[in-house]
């Protein structure tokens, strides 16, 4: 089976800083891939390369059977990619509902009442329904994180990319968010999730990848990867036997 998303020897550097170094990996349809790595390892840049806000110096990106390496971000979005941002970036002068509608009508290709109903369903799922008419700029951190998720979901994505969506949340908030993401995954949406909150990640993903200095360090079954001495040392910065 051809991979749903595949990066083939993708490289990107800003001067001396390398954010992606011969990065190759594949995600199968319906899979949930977790990505971990130290700060500055190139995780978010990897998302930027996949979504098209960065263009690679070398390599190829295929998505849903098509080479998208040179497609615009807007085009890739309409092809079924959606992402959340580590630092939430809502359209702050617009209401929560309007934020959702932009995603549903532009990226999701829906219209009129269909789009409205879809947005309401997603807002219900992401527990933002009661804030639907609040200006996005006035939301709390959890609210903004949920809005990031809402907007990504309203795009009806085939591939959902989450960037540290659990970061900065309380334990209870995190649990309910994990449940929401599990539900989304259960409906067959392919997920790539970058996260520092490892236990949240482990509850959802089927596969784990570790990157550092833009390179893939390890990839495989989540438990095995987390227990490998390499990861213990590089990612957690502790000795393997600790």
């Amino acid at each position: 089976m051809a991979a749903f998303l595949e990066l083939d020897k993708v490289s990107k550097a800003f001067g001396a800083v390398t954010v992606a170094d011969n990065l190759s990996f594949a995600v199968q349809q319906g899979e949930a891939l977790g990505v971990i790595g130290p700060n500055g390892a190139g995780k978010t840049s990897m998302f930027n390369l996949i979504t098209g806000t960065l263009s690679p110096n070398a390599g190829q990106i295929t998505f849903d059977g098509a080479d998208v390496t040179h497609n615009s971000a807007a085009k890739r979005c309409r092809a079924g990619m959606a992402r959340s941002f580590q630092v939430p970036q809502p359209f702050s002068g617009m209401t929560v509902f309007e934020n959702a509608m932009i995603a549903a009508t532009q990226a999701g290709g829906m219209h009129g009442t269909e789009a409205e109903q879809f947005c309401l369903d997603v807002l219900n799922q992401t527990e933002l329904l009661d804030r639907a008419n609040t200006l996005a700029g006035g939301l709390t951190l959890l609210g903004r994180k949920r809005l990031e998720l809402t907007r990504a979901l309203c795009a009806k994505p085939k591939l959902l990319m989450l960037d540290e969506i659990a970061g900065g949340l309380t334990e209870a908030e995190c649990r309910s968010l994990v449940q929401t993401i599990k539900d989304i995954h259960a409906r067959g949406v392919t997920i790539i999730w970058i996260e520092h909150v490892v236990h949240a990640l482990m509850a959802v993903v089927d596969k784990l990848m570790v990157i550092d200095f833009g390179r893939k360090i390890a990839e495989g079954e989540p438990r095995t990867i987390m227990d490998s001495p390499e990861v213990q040392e590089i990612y957690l910065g502790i000795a393997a036997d600790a």
Partner: protein
Amino acid sequence: MEWVNALLQGTLLGGLYALFAAGLSLIFGVMRLVNIAHGDLIVLGAYLGLSVTTVLGFHPMLALIVVVPAMAIFGYVLQRGILNQTLGKDILPPLLVTFGLSVIIQNALLETYSADPQKMNAGALETASVSLGGLSVGVLPVLTFAIAIAVIATLQWIFYRTALGRAFRATSDNQEIAQLMGLNRRHIFGLAMALALAVTAIAGIMLGIRTSFDPSIGGGRLIFGFEAVIIGGLGNLWGTLVGGVILGVAQTIGAKIDPGWQLLAGHLTFLVILAVKPNGLFPRISE
């Protein structure tokens, strides 16, 4: 009574200034583009109206149905063809390019229509007036003011009640994220310019019915438009209407004191408001 009259005439004149300013306000609001050619585009609208009335024999108000779509299409092409290329982090290129555009439009009009002042003939509409408690109020200024309110209400409705308006606001809010949401910025900007020039066409025709015009008057209309936008506060369309009215009233009151003071009084009022409230009276964009 004379002062009340000046106040009323000034308010109605403000409607015309709000029409000058609405397109400017819209373009700046959506794409942060300061369009130096805006005044000349208004004059272009007036000349297109003139051509339609002379060639087709239409009444100037009827010419709107030809000139408005024509200007809108021109706006879309202009934006996609030229202005989109100038937009970026640097605000200088769009200023320079629209300045160049201003020169080009002026000279093209000069070449086509000569420097002679022209006027559109609107027949009875130009002189018709109604008596209002001792004051004589021209039908044309009242009509212009009503159109200004209708235009601004429509723009407001588009911005806050339609999918297109949502796209405008999202793009204005955060271009990069809007792109990621599948919005094509270039197309959205094209539509914004089309809408702005549709309004500009209305402004041009109302101008052309009210006074005589020649290819050189664009600059002055641009200044009035700017002043109305700044007085009202950036990004606030109803504020723009208020700005237009304040400018219009200042001018007629100034003219009442001394005929030579008309323009000066307007500019002075603008300066005072700028000094006291640099963001205008009702700013919506806070940056």
